[in-house]
């Protein structure tokens, strides 16, 4: 065990898999000489050479499409979108080709797409998005949203070994801010198993990614304020998602807040809330609440972006509303 940043954990997980398995290679914009826009692959070109660390042209379609081809030939490609926002340029290749190939003709497509996501830095409408909501609607893809350094490593390793196309959402706001214990060496975390980030009895917050920490601050605040005991469930993966863990938590607390940074309408929170409402109807003492970003692009200017992103105060207010119900 060592204490590492979230970014370092991703970098280490990737490096270790590349050392372990010569089929793993990387392709993306500026990931080689420059080490990636966020320096996740710093030093990789030197260690693995330019056959395995490929600085691609500015070509998201070719990046994802060629990963699919290489995967069909037995490689284990890991590509990087420079910002997750640009995955819109590879949407067709993910949804049409990679996601459906196995169902259609039985050929697995083991690719990983790394997606630096999320806001909080005045990145504006195109460098701040959380595009998981779009892809959650596509059967055949797996979606991973780690919150902790240990999970960032363990889920990335698992993603690389998974025989399916995996979208790996790395929250940029966690990269250097969040540190934690990370197992050394071999460490893989199973998909579809939520993590109880904090135990509680009065109310459940179902969330993932950076919002885990916003939830945590809010939980601490209400505990201090009036003793409300909040349980936080970190989903870790959205496809598959751990429905059972969510239903178990709701059975315990009877009140639930679904929280994400992605925008509201048809966000993954809708799926969670709809499922809880359908399958835990009799356990609910209050309506399932959702707290998300509003239905707007991510604005650039700090006062707007702050209003856009769910803040600790917003979570506290939502908890208070549910408590009062």
């Amino acid at each position, binding site marked *: 065990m060592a204490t590492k940043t979230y970014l370092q954990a991703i970098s280490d997980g990737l490096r270790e898999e590349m050392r372990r398995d010569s089929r793993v290679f990387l392709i993306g914009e500026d990931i080689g000489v420059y080490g990636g826009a966020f320096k996740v692959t710093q030093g990789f070109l030197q260690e693995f050479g330019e056959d395995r660390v490929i600085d691609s042209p500015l070509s998201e*379609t070719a990046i*994802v499409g*060629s990963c699919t081809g290489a995967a*069909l030939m*037995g490689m284990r490609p890991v590509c990087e979108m420079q910002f997750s926002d640009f995955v819109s340029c590879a949407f067709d290749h993910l949804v049409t*080709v990679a996601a459906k190939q196995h169902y259609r003709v039985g050929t*697995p497509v083991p690719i990983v797409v790394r997606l630096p996501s999320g806001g909080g830095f005045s990145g504006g409408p195109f460098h701040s998005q959380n595009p998981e909501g779009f892809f959650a609607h596509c059967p055949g893809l797996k979606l991973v949203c780690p919150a902790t350094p240990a999970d960032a490593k363990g889920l990335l390793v698992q993603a690389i070994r998974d025989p399916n196309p995996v979208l790996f959402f790395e929250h940029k706001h966690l990269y250097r801010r969040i540190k934690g214990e990370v197992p050394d060496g071999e460490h893989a975390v199973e998909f579809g198993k939520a993590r109880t980030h904090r135990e509680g009895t009065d109310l459940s917050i179902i969330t993932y990614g950076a919002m885990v920490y916003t939830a945590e601050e809010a939980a601490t605040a209400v505990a201090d304020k009036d003793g409300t005991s909040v349980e936080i469930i970190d989903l870790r993966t959205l496809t598959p998602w751990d429905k059972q863990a969510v239903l178990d938590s709701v059975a315990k607390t009877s009140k639930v807040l679904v929280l994400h940074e992605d925008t509201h309408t048809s966000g993954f929170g809708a799926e969670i809330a709809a499922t809880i409402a359908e399958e835990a109807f009799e356990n609910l003492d209050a309506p399932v609440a959702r707290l998300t970003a509003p239905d707007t692009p991510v604005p650039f200017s700090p006062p707007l972006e702050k209003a856009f992103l769910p803040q600790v105060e917003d979570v506290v207010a939502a908890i208070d509303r549910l408590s009062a119900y």
Partner: protein
Amino acid sequence: MAIAREATPVSSAADIKDADLDREDLLQIYRNMLVTRGIEERGHILYRQGKIPGSFYTGRGNEGGSVGVATAMRADDVGAPIQRDMGVHVTRGTDPWRIFAQYMGRRDGLAAGKDGNVHMADIRLGLIAMVSHLPALMPVAVGCALAFKIRKEPRVAVAWSGDGAMARGDAHEAMNLAGVHRLPVVFICDNNQYAYSTPNRLEFGVDHLADRAAAYGFDGVVVDGTDVLTVYREAHRAIEKARAGGGPTLLELVTLRMEGHAVHDDAFYVPRELLEAYTRKDPIERYRRWLKEQAILDEEADDAITVEVKKLLNDAMKRAEESPLPDPSELETGVYAEPEELDTPHHK
């Protein structure tokens, strides 16, 4: 002003020697063309009998292109053929009965009823199943070539596109990436002069699609796609050049789509004279004539092959009709792959 080279037709006996084909190969090409057309003709019948759900597409007029290119591929090369390339599946050894089963949405179809018509391929034969979205398999084929380059394997990927599909971004991104890394990939453009009802002049503003190759730093060749031997020779050159590290080539195979876009389309928009001209250039008739001129095929041998092909296909149809429809319980299987599936040889 063409930038691409225009391939001279194969004519002399010497040309054939160069092209590395012996008598048996030449007859196999003929057989493959007959099987290709035979499958699609029978598909039409099955369709009219109501046995093929959905729509139905053929590649009539493209038998020279598809069989010619596939013949030039080596066993461990890979390809991603499209909707007019039944000849590729046939030449690589796909069992005709499984193709009929595929057409009819049966469990023994290559897509086991999950997908239909020519959206199929047997990966064990080095073929990758197309998606409808054209030409999405071009970047995929480039990725195969990338894998070969990384692993330093002497293998080549072949990527197909129609003339219409060359307008899409996928074609560009694929050829650009291949050009930058000089990947072992050959791009084949089945230029059958139409994209559905849209003629070449509304698809691109250049003389020949093969001229595009120059924009990516590799060679383009315009080939008469109705002439299977010229197709073979040019594909062979391009494939071996790629294998030797010489980078990609774009071959434009010019033919005509001899039937509608699909069964429902009578292709009223294709000028009659054009259709007649290409009827005269029918790739199978042309090749048959040539084989006879060269005394490789006589009347008797031709009849024997015809009978053999007919039997093969009729048996195949029968066998396919015996294949069951998938069971509704199979609906939700296979959305995700299981780890064990990576234990197949090509995934190691």
